[in-house]
């Protein structure tokens, strides 16, 4: 029966929401660079999903070796050449997108969740809780993240999940500080006072009134961080902690290619460019999102 009251919402909410979305899209579209970023990110996500299926030499992705085809220079058959065991570099790079992007996502999501929780509690509770949490955050922040991640990965052992966990554990402090600052500012807003005056519980005030108004900078930071997370994942792969071969991953590919530089330069080309593109794309997208969601941060 309560459905009967709904026509009001259907007629009013529809156009308004659509109009707001249209306005945001318009602002986003005005910037060519954000669109380019979105396009690159779409491409990266596309390969993350379908890279290993679309790879021209799927057998190479699965680890097959052909010594006869070692170090072939770029050609029509192998646009980015072959590596030291005769595998097609383009195929490996395409397939490597999956691990790199998944790991990047994992890091950013776990890191932002952890950081948001710590920062929100610190900023909202204030006093001793704030003091303790932020000292701990600063402590983690002073340790270079790659080294911390290496230490954690070494302790947990290699592997995809451990790598993601290791990087996330060094990644959250940035979010904690960002969110704490946002919460501290939002806490003083009049509408938050209004919510308290209504009798809303602290949890309601935090989750319904404060956090939703801190969301935009978090999303922007997540998008900007995606690129760096992918780089860090590759960095761990480069040092040899992280995903085990034969699973292709950009950092590992680069690391192997390094030993054959500069003679067989093409082995580093595809993974390097892929990484550059992904980082570039996510950063442009993040900048564009900031313009739409968080106009304060605009230059």
């Amino acid at each position, binding site marked *: 029966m309560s459905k009967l009251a709904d026509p*009001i919402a259907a007629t009013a909410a529809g156009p*308004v929401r659509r109009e707001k979305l249209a306005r945001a899209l318009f602002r986003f579209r005005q910037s060519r660079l954000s669109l380019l970023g979105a396009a690159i990110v779409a491409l990266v996500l596309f390969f993350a999903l379908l890279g290993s299926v679309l790879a021209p030499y799927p057998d190479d992705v699965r680890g097959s070796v052909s010594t006869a085809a070692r170090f072939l220079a770029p050609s029509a058959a192998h646009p980015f050449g072959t590596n030291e065991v005769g595998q097609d570099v383009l195929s490996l790079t395409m397939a490597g997108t999956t691990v790199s992007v998944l790991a990047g996502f994992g890091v950013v999501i776990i890191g932002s969740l952890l950081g948001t929780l710590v920062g929100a509690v610190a900023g909202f509770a204030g006093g001793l809780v704030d003091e303790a949490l932020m000292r701990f955050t600063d402590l983690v922040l002073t340790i270079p993240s790659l080294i911390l991640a290496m230490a954690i990965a070494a302790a947990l052992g290699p592997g995809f999940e451990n790598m993601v966990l290791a990087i996330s554990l060094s990644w959250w402090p940035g979010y904690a500080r960002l969110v704490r600052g946002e919460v501290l500012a939002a806490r003083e807003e009049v509408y938050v006072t209004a919510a308290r005056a209504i009798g809303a519980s602290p949890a309601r005030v935090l989750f319904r009134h404060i956090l939703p108004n801190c969301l935009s900078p978090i999303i922007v930071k997540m998008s900007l961080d995606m690129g760096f997370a992918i780089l860090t994942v590759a960095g761990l792969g480069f040092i040899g902690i992280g995903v085990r071969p034969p699973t292709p991953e950009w950092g590992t590919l680069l690391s192997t290619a390094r030993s054959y530089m500069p003679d067989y330069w093409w082995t580093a080309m595809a993974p390097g460019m892929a990484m550059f593109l992904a980082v570039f794309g996510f950063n442009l997208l993040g900048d564009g999102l900031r313009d739409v969601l968080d106009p304060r941060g605009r230059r």
Partner: protein
Amino acid sequence: MVEPILEIQGVRKTYPARRSLFGRSAAVDALKGVSLAVTPGESFGLVGESGSGKTTLTRSILRLEAPTAGRILFKGEDMARLGPKALRTLRARIQIVFQDPYASLNPRMTVEEIVSEPMLVHRDILRLDRAGRRDRAAELLALVGLSTQHLARNPHEFSGGQRQRIGIARALAAGPELLLLDEPTSALDVSVQAQVLNLLIDLQDRLGLTYLFISHDLAVVRYLCDRVALIHSGVLVEEGPTREIFDAPQSDYARMLLGAAPKVRVPPATPSG
């Protein structure tokens, strides 16, 4: 004598000194022993310069701030003694309308969410289900002169006057008896001020509300309030029926406030050219 709905007894509030990057800020005595009583159904005006402690008093009444000393009684009950549950119940009975309608509405919520939130928070008292809350939200909007089609909109789509109406609807949602009005019209255009004031007068007649009306616009206070108190840097300087204060101010501060206000004289009943 009628029992006061709100009784403030010797309330003091000192904001402690704070250390910051730029040195120490001294402690601020925002309220230095304020006592007043508001009787049910009246409009009590509180007038004072900027920084005289008016907002601090409303925050203390709502117990968003604990007074440093003194007692605040609502219908004879000491608010400091209330447990969390009783305090929450009390917050359905005292509500506030804020000065700045641009800041007092959560930009991420729709009007319906804003107006129904008090009903949600106090659902154990009001006993409204989803449909009931929606109906009452529509009813409240109509009461403050907005329409149902505004329910799904966000605050930023409204003018200042309309936003203040939404703020008033939210304040009324839980069925309060006492409404604190902290300069509810000072952020609005003059033409809109009159509309909102008339709405407030109309609502008081219809709902039998008690108002604690804060303002530094004496013309408005004179128009709306039965009694007035003048506050000056945390101290009540003068208190009494509006007519008396305006006709025969006792203190220099009162004369100063009255002198600073634009003269609103009723012209003598002579034909004018």
